[in-house]
């Protein structure tokens, strides 16, 4: 859904005020971006967010890691076949440690890549919508993406839900 870059930002001192505004705005068909100082499931519930895609990155990274670890140990041992301590050239019990560590390594790194991609980080420049520094302290923010004709209605909803400050970005 294409979202307006302009809109109305409500700064809420209370969590339930913010969730009320989210619910009411979504009923009116607004696209909503929220800001919170800490993850709250009430906000996620009000937004009805789909499951995060990070898990796919983790799984793919871990599988790639297992394959890469096994391939490295097996191929390198076959590349210069040298019997050590009477063990097989391809000694899987010993290689399991390598396979395990590379699984974790690539799983973790691709989880981070997944976070950066799905979370759209790092945010270069201003990003979309208004922001207020109190959102990392104790305030909850609700930004309603709205065109110029919808601003009035969004402002009313914000104020009625208990926003202590309403900011408007007309673009």
């Amino acid at each position: 859904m294409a979202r307006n870059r302009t809109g109305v930002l409500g700064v809420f001192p209370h969590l339930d005020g913010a969730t009320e505004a989210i619910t009411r705005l979504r009923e009116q068909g607004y696209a909503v971006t929220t800001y919170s100082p800490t993850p709250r499931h009430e906000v996620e519930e009000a937004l009805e967010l789909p499951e995060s895609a990070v898990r796919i990155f983790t799984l793919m990274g871990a599988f790639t890691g297992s394959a890469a670890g096994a391939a490295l140990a097996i191929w390198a041992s076959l590349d210069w076949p040298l019997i050590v301590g009477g063990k097989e050239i391809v000694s899987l019990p010993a290689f399991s440690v390598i396979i395990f560590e590379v699984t974790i390594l690539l799983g973790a790194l691709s989880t981070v890549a997944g976070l950066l991609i799905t979370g759209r980080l790092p945010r270069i420049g201003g990003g979309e919508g208004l922001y207020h520094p109190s959102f990392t302290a104790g305030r909850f923010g609700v930004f309603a993406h709205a065109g110029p004709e919808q601003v009035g209605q969004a402002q009313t909803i914000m104020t009625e839900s208990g926003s202590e400050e309403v900011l408007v970005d007309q673009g």
Partner: protein
Amino acid sequence: MATEELRSVFHPDVANYEQVNRDAMRLLSKPGPGYLALLGLCVTLVVIMVIAFAHEVYYGIGFAGITNPSGWGTFITTFVFWVGIGHAGTLISAILFLFRAPWRQAIYRLAEAMTVFAVLTAALFPIIHIGRPWFFYWLLPLPSERGIWPNFRSPLLWDVFAVTTYLTVSSVFFYIGLIPDIAAARDSTTVPWRKKAYTILSLGWRGTDREWKNFTRAYLFLAALATPLVLSVHSVVSWDFAVSIVPGWHTTIFAPYFVAGAILSGVAMVVTIGVPLRKIFRLEAYLTELHFDRMAKLLLLTSTIVGFAYGMEYFMAWYSAELFERDVFFDRVFGQYWWAGWSMISFNALVPQLLWIPKIRKNLTAFFIISTFVNIGMWYERFVIIVPSLSHSYEPWKFLNYHMSYTEAAILLGSFGWFFMWMLLFLRFLPSLSIAEIKEILPPPLKKHDAHAHALDDHDVRVVEELPTGYKEFERR
């Protein structure tokens, strides 16, 4: 009932979200002379270490006292010691996260920083110990002109993989957890260069729904990956010993024994750092008695496991009826290293048993002293495992009494300077209280009480135990 009256059971003195930010930012203010003096001391120790290391490189590894049969002296002892210190950080940040223990929130950042810096310290030692540090890349599986590769069946190569993975994953985990808090620091700081640095480091974090949703998931998966990793790392370190046939090393108990010991030493280090920090920065509202009580129980548990392992080692040595095995274990407590052997047993297994007494457990000074004993005792444990076994193995003509050289002593001392230097810098430059996660266990600000999905039926209750968000999501499914 006014919402302000609701308090978290863990932080009854924390009134609201804003207070967490204020208190965390207090640590990032201009340092006093005491801090600078400590930092100066640490840097001096690092300089001493660098000089000692330069001497060792110039004159050769023998100058540091590394010789046969004690090829692994203080350096490897200290390596294992620092890797072990790191383990409590991952335990508190990842394992307790998966177990949904809300008391971890206040201390985990500190413990996690400790992990990263301890592993960073440990990583120095293999490099120092190889004597020709410019060849350190021979440890890595890189193609050479002869097409020969490292031996993948060797525990020493497993160790390279385990420790580098651990350093990478714990650094990444540490940094990812820091992002929302660096953003909080960015939004509140007034110092221009700090604002610029925090803006870059926070990656432009704003705490949007999209960011939090993916962040909480990614954090959960990182914790799930770090948990088996931390158990594997010290197991692999223990296999450096257990896979060889040196008497005193060749036992199957080593992996769990080392992991329990690692957690014991790490928790002790968290306490050793946490108690003075709480006092100096007046963090009583965050590092409460409850936190220290739980850490005392963790210390007691791991100390008991370690004590059991000590007993089991002696039992197995006797029961195996193996001459060399019995001799090494006899030598540990009655031989030339009897002082190290008895220090290890009394500091790690006996002294912490005092924590059974609630009065001692609640007395932070006593707890601090006990944790210091454990720190020393755990260094001795690694010393006792490594040195007496090597210097007293099969053939009497190979016996050699090992003494720590001045070079080794200087590098050991310098490693503490190196570790605490990073810790001190961390305290002043990055948020050492996990701002966003402490807020997870505080009751959220509400205008009307019953709107809270998990509101209390009994309005007389003044404290609530808020669990991390993920738990509620789990419950909901």
